[in-house]
């Protein structure tokens, strides 16, 4: 998802690297050694990671919006407490990732600025609206399920700080996915109206979730470099297939149907096969024409502006306290 940045071409200027250092770096990657912040690394490796990790962080932060939509309308206090702590986790994930990104020599201000200016992307999935309560179930079960599929291989990423952040995140995502499935199960076993809500959510989220894994391998722009450098470890299609195989039986257990008349189990390959994915929709959403792109960016910019006085107050307070302490020390 969350790895969509790896499908973009590196647009930075070409850098001629010292061949000896480059060879040593390649050997370390090939030997599955971890690269740490102060180690020498090729400029393209650094740039790819800054793009990937910062966009991953932005996705976590923007991802709070579709769920925030239902906090005040959660059906019970229990569901509300769970939803709040899930949203708090997303903020935490964003912070772990921004910290990991900063170890690559870029400042927090620069990466946040790139998002606010519309230069950096975030996962396409968060540009879809959350129209009914069952969407909280579908997001946890499907969106977080797809995220886990993507993120587990990232736990073994060659860049140490990113890999460590991913390990923490994966542990927490597991709660997200299970609570989402539980919401779906409760609705699916509820009244016909409740089951219809669950079905409606599945119908709307299924295809966008399959798109989260990025374009098919045949047209993906990602370089073989990110595979060789052990940033990306599986292809988009491989991860998507894993997700489909894991998820279809879970949906059938709920007694729901998938919005794909061509979905069938291939006995020979033992894989579930879907109908064709509408990639023109994916392109539109990435280009800013999804249902909620403008709203998400507007809210994000507004939040940044609304928080300015809090940050300013913290700065002034810290200065005042430091001055008072200096005065006391002098007495």
């Amino acid at each position, binding site marked *: 998802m969350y790895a969509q940045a790896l499908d973009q071409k590196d647009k930075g200027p070409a850098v001629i690297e010292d061949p000896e250092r480059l060879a040593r770096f390649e050997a370390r990657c090939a030997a599955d050694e971890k690269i740490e912040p102060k180690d020498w690394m090729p400029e393209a490796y650094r740039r790819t990671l800054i793009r990937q990790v910062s966009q991953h962080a932005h996705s976590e932060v923007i991802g709070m919006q579709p769920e925030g939509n239902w906090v005040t309308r959660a059906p019970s206090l229990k569901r509300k407490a769970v939803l709040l702590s899930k949203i708090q*986790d997303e903020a935490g994930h964003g912070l772990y990732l921004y910290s990991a990104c900063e170890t690559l020599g870029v400042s927090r201000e620069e990466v946040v600025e790139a998002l606010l200016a519309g230069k950096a992307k975030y996962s396409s999935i968060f540009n879809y609206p959350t129209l009914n309560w069952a969407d909280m179930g579908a997001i946890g079960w499907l969106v977080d399920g797809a995220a886990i599929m993507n993120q587990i291989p990232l736990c073994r990423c060659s860049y140490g700080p990113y890999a460590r952040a991913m390990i923490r995140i994966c542990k*927490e995502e597991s709660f997200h996915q299970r609570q989402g499935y539980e919401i779906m199960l409760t609705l699916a076993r509820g009244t016909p109206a409740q089951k219809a809500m669950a079905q409606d959510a599945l119908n709307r989220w299924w295809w966008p979730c399959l798109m989260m894994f990025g374009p098919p391998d045949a047209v993906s722009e990602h370089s073989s470099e990110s595979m060789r450098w052990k940033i990306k470890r599986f292809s988009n299609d491989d991860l998507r297939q894993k997700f489909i195989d894991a998820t279809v039986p879970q949906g059938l257990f709920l007694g729901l149907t998938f919005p794909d008349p061509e979905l069938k189990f291939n006995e020979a390959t033992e894989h579930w096969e879907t109908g064709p994915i509408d990639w023109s929709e994916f392109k539109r959403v990435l280009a800013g024409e999804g249902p909620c792109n403008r709203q998400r960016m507007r809210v994000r*910019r507004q939040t940044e502006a609304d928080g300015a006085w809090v940050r300013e107050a913290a700065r002034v307070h810290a200065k005042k306290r430091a001055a008072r302490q200096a005065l006391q020390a002098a007495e």
Partner: protein
Amino acid sequence: MSEQSKTEEPMPLYEVFIRPKAGLSHKHVGSLHAIDDTMALHMARDVYTRRAEGVSIWVVRSNLIAASDPVDKDMLFEPTASKIYRHPTFYEVPEEVGHM
């Protein structure tokens, strides 16, 4: 908005260390930005201990940490590789003597 954040003074970076439980050492878990030590401790609690990960937190301004340079790695750590006699497995103890 975006104009604003450009003029804002960046908040200092802190490294966060957590003691998972009594009897274990504090371990580095990540970093965060805060204006002072008090705020860094509050934020570390919220960001890094949401699931009872620790019983104690240390925060320290990143620019106060002195670190060895990876370039010096061989010079600093390579000599120990040849001193295998510093490990117990270097010495042979007859089987009859038993566990030592």
